[in-house]
């Protein structure tokens, strides 16, 4: 089998979120086009559509930056008192956002600042479930994390399937589960679950 990687290719901002959730999930998505389509996603998509049509905002602007190695569409950029603030909408059922959402938002802020040549230190996460928006202060730590994850994603290779997640709870909500078969893998080839959250579930 030939090895190939995503070197020389830009990383999509949404991949940051996927990677933080589970690297294996991102692997399936990128190499096998296999993430499944859970109904909540379908639902989220139609909500997006509705919102984008409403107008009044700058919606869905595409940004890319070769130095960062990132590209992606920002849902919505809000401009108030001369500052631009990216808004990322989330459909999280739990009424809360995840660290992976913060990383994704940090990626958007970094893309935006490259585009406008000014720092962007705040972004919003809007949650449909609670109709609340949360201001996130983007720190140096966020920025370092984004760069590190971009590097790791660029280093992914088709011959190296990332291990199962260390947190089986994530699998419960993972749309790639049908394909990934974490519990089944732990039963059929237990050594494949070693040192993952599925160890001992066989």
């Amino acid at each position, binding site marked *: *089998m*030939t090895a*190939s990687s995503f070197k020389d290719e830009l990383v999509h901002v949404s991949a940051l979120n996927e990677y933080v959730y589970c690297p294996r999930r991102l692997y399936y998505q990128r*190499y*096998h*086009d*296999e993430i*499944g*389509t*859970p*109904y909540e996603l*379908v639902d989220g998509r139609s909500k997006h559509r509705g919102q984008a049509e409403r107008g009044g905002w700058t919606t869905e602007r595409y940004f890319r930056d070769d130095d960062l190695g990132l590209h992606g569409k920002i849902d919505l950029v809000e401009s108030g008192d001369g500052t631009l603030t990216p808004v990322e909408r989330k459909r999280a059922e739990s009424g809360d956002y995840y660290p992976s959402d913060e990383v994704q938002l940090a990626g958007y802020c970094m893309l935006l600042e490259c585009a406008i040549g000014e720092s962007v230190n705040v972004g919003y996460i809007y949650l449909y479930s609670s109709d609340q928006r949360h201001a996130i202060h983007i720190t140096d730590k966020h920025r370092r994390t984004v760069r590190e994850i971009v590097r790791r994603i660029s280093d992914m290779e*088709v*011959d190296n*399937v990332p291990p199962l997640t260390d947190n089986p709870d994530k699998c419960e909500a993972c*749309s790639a*589960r*049908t*394909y990934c*078969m974490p*519990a*089944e*893998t732990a*039963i*059929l*080839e237990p050594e*494949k679950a070693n040192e993952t959250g599925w160890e001992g*579930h066989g």
Partner: protein
Amino acid sequence: MKASEGVFDESVVYVTEQGTQVRTDEGRIVVWDVDGDGGELATYPTEQLDTINVFGGVNFSTPFVAEANEYGIVLNYFTENGQYRGSFVPEKNTIAEVRRAQYALSEADELAIAKAMIRAKIRNSRTLLSRKGVHGTEVLKDLGVRAENATDEDSLRGTEGEAAERYFDRLDETLTDGWTFEQRTKRPPEDHVNSLLSLTYVMVKNEVLSALRQYNLDPFLGVLHADRHGRPSLALDLQEEFRPIFCDAFATRLINRGTITHDDFNADNRLSDDAFKTYLGKFDDYLQEEFTHPYFEYSVTRRKAIRQQAILLRKAITGELDEYHPLEMTR
């Protein structure tokens, strides 16, 4: 442990009503009665489907085909009585990395996968016979061991052939009075039992084919069946383990429960149009019936089990798993 999520069971649709058109309407797929005045006969969310099987005089609107391509929905065409005519396969169902791994399989890799499939088939033959109270099948057990130890494809094929012969010799004993199964014949089927078995193999082969396509394996490049132009060798290979437990079990059930009688066949041993419709309905129900998975221990439908085997095969081919784990039913 709970069954993994997925929408496999509503993911395959059969359209048998003649004179209908399959169209798209705001994110849904609609079967419309064009010739008659039935209007909208059925509707499904586009996101949910991966395969549509149409029989005879059913057509697709052009926008629908574009949407099928976009959503990765495979369209299989059959004649009104179930002969396969061809497929529409969406562009996205060809993932280069998976194909590359499949084409790069070594002979040893292929043999290992084929052995697992045949071993399971022989095991499943014994299981079906014993479920029906047919005993004295130790010879099959020995042949299973022989399959396991085969060192080349020819000897594996030989073992498989011998096991099939022994198994079909005993299958007669599972049939209710008035039905006999002389000998497995293929073209043309010489009796009603053979006809029903042939039809069921075709139907299950199509399920397997859809599953392989769904997971981007090339169904025409086999591990055991010889590749021949137009022959879905890999589908035939993967089908082997399902033949006794899914195909033969279904055909004998139709006979033993009196769902299909001798009167349902035409002079050429094919099912009459009405009986074929009954058959299709029962077949779809059968695939949606659940059983307890022998290793995973959750309830799973037969259709989903077939899909899972396609995934497991793909994982063995791409090296994500070390070996192919066939579906082996021991009870």
